[in-house]
């Protein structure tokens, strides 16, 4: 009996070690493309096209990055991207926290109806609405401005964000605002002075997700911005594909420049990201 339990423990430990080993192998596989991007961005053409492929450059060729900066007006595109991201962030946070509060803590007629309607927009393919929206923005003469990309954030804030904020509100004890109501404080005062400070963690999640989403967005800028003085980075870097068609070192440098800020934001809010994504599934 003793032997068998010892054996079991032994097998248990071996199995755990094998699991970890397998997971590390998968990690290596998923990191390798990142590594390949960086190593290619620091090579010259000769090294790039040598066979068998070299694992690392002999000398770090930073001039590929200068190549990107010469081909693409990087500061301008970066500024454009930021001029879209900041209004979107602000609008998203304001609207989704207001709506999340109402859906999470207040009672009102047709509450479920509106909530289901808002959530159902998550499943709606954007293609169904994109053509009329494009027509209206262009009738308003606002193609090649940032308005089509920023204004919608102030009306809606994203169904997923509203959902996150609502769930968070539902975990806060009901007593907190009851005492405030007795004091005669209005709902807006309760919201701004009591609720808003409490939901900062979930607003951080919303901010991070929204930042990454806007930073990565390609379809909307492609649609609404067609003058290259208005391009965002995601859109502007596409020109590299034409200009440096087989210069993979320069293209990888461009990809690295585009990826780095997303990774930095991800590491800053890593804990929040992973929790946010886990949260999605749990309540899904």
């Amino acid at each position, binding site marked *: 009996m003793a032997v068998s339990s010892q054996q079991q423990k032994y097998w248990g430990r071996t199995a755990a070690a094998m699991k970890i080993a397998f997971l590390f192998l998968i990690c290596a596989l998923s990191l390798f493309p990142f590594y390949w991007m960086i190593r290619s961005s620091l090579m010259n053409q000769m090294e790039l096209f040598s066979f068998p492929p070299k694992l690392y450059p002999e000398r770090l060729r930073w001039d590929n990055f200068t190549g990107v900066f010469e081909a693409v007006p990087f500061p301008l595109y970066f500024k454009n991207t930021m001029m879209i991201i900041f209004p979107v962030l602000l609008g998203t946070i304001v609207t989704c926290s207001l709506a999340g509060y109402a859906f999470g803590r207040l009672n009102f007629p047709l509450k479920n109806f509106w909530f289901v309607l808002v959530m159902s927009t998550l499943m709606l393919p954007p293609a169904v609405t994109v053509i009329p*929206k494009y027509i209206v923005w262009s009738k308003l003469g606002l193609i090649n401005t940032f308005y089509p990309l920023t204004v919608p954030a102030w009306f809606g804030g994203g169904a997923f964000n509203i959902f996150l904020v609502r769930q968070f509100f539902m975990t806060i004890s009901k007593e907190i605002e009851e005492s405030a109501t007795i004091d005669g404080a209005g709902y807006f005062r309760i919201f701004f002075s009591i609720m808003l400070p409490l939901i900062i963690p979930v607003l951080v999640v919303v901010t991070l997700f929204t930042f990454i989403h806007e930073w990565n967005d390609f379809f909307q800028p492609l649609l609404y911005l067609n003058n290259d003085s208005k391009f965002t980075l995601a859109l502007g870097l596409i020109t590299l594909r034409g200009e440096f068609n087989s210069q993979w070192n320069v293209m990888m440098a461009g990809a690295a420049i585009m990826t780095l800020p997303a990774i930095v934001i991800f590491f800053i809010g890593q804990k929040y990201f992973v929790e946010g*994504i886990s949260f999605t599934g749990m309540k899904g």
Partner: protein
Amino acid sequence: MEQAVGAKVRLKSRKRSLIARKEAIAAYLFILPVILGLFLWTIGPMIASLFISFSNWQVFDTLKWVGISNYEKIFTRDLFFYKSILVTLYYAFGCVVTTSVASVILGSLMNMDMKRISFIRTVLYMPTIVPAVASSFLWLWLFNPDFGLLNSILSFFGIPKLQWVFAESTAIPSLILMHLWTAGSGALIVLAGLKDVPKHLYEAVEIDGGGWWSKFWYVSIPFITPVIFFNLVMGFIGSLQAFTTAYIMTQGGPNNATLFFVYYLYREAFVNNHFGYASALAWILFWIIAMLTALIFKSSKGWVFYGGK
């Protein structure tokens, strides 16, 4: 006496209804931007695009009603339409099946002491946040037939080189492989689901002499069916709308092998300016997604287990 109490109750209930009304007004003010947005960005444009789909609106300002002829042309004479439906479904099924299997396996393997796997969680999630432009460049390079990493690995093992996204038969499988790189986020959702499984159920299996397979198959899997279901629905909706990879990497080629539906729609609407025709395509996409989602929902009654709630 009784009357007085009654009056008091009435007064109380009136006061309560007053509070309720104040609360409702406040709540509507709070959700006002969202409701406005709902009408401005969703319901209004949906109605508009339905109307436009019955017109031959090509360039600005010339709109003529053409009845159902857009739809008629799509279903009877548009070979691109059938091609793009086929290609998109192939891609979506491939993505959803591979990612679901991978995320269940990875999620289950990660289901251990949280501290030990925090590094693994981070690493597996990382590919998800790479901008589509960057990952498209990167994978174009990895897929490069002459000097790409993947063919170098193949030739190292003596396997003949593949053309990856540059050949008709391997284009979609290649893009599915690229999509599989981002399976980590699904794995994290599975992992979160597994954390809710009551421990005593595993112990019960152990007492009955069951091994890891029984634990996995009879306890873990039933408990994470809601999570698998969620991943399935969202995965389908997402991959049926793939666009950026086709736009940047393949432009729908070779020989329309990656003519994703939304890419085809984009081309019709914003390159050829066929707003009417593209709107009809958009509504067909809407119904395809709605029907597939309904199908998954319907089938879910047979296999999704909500006992954990």
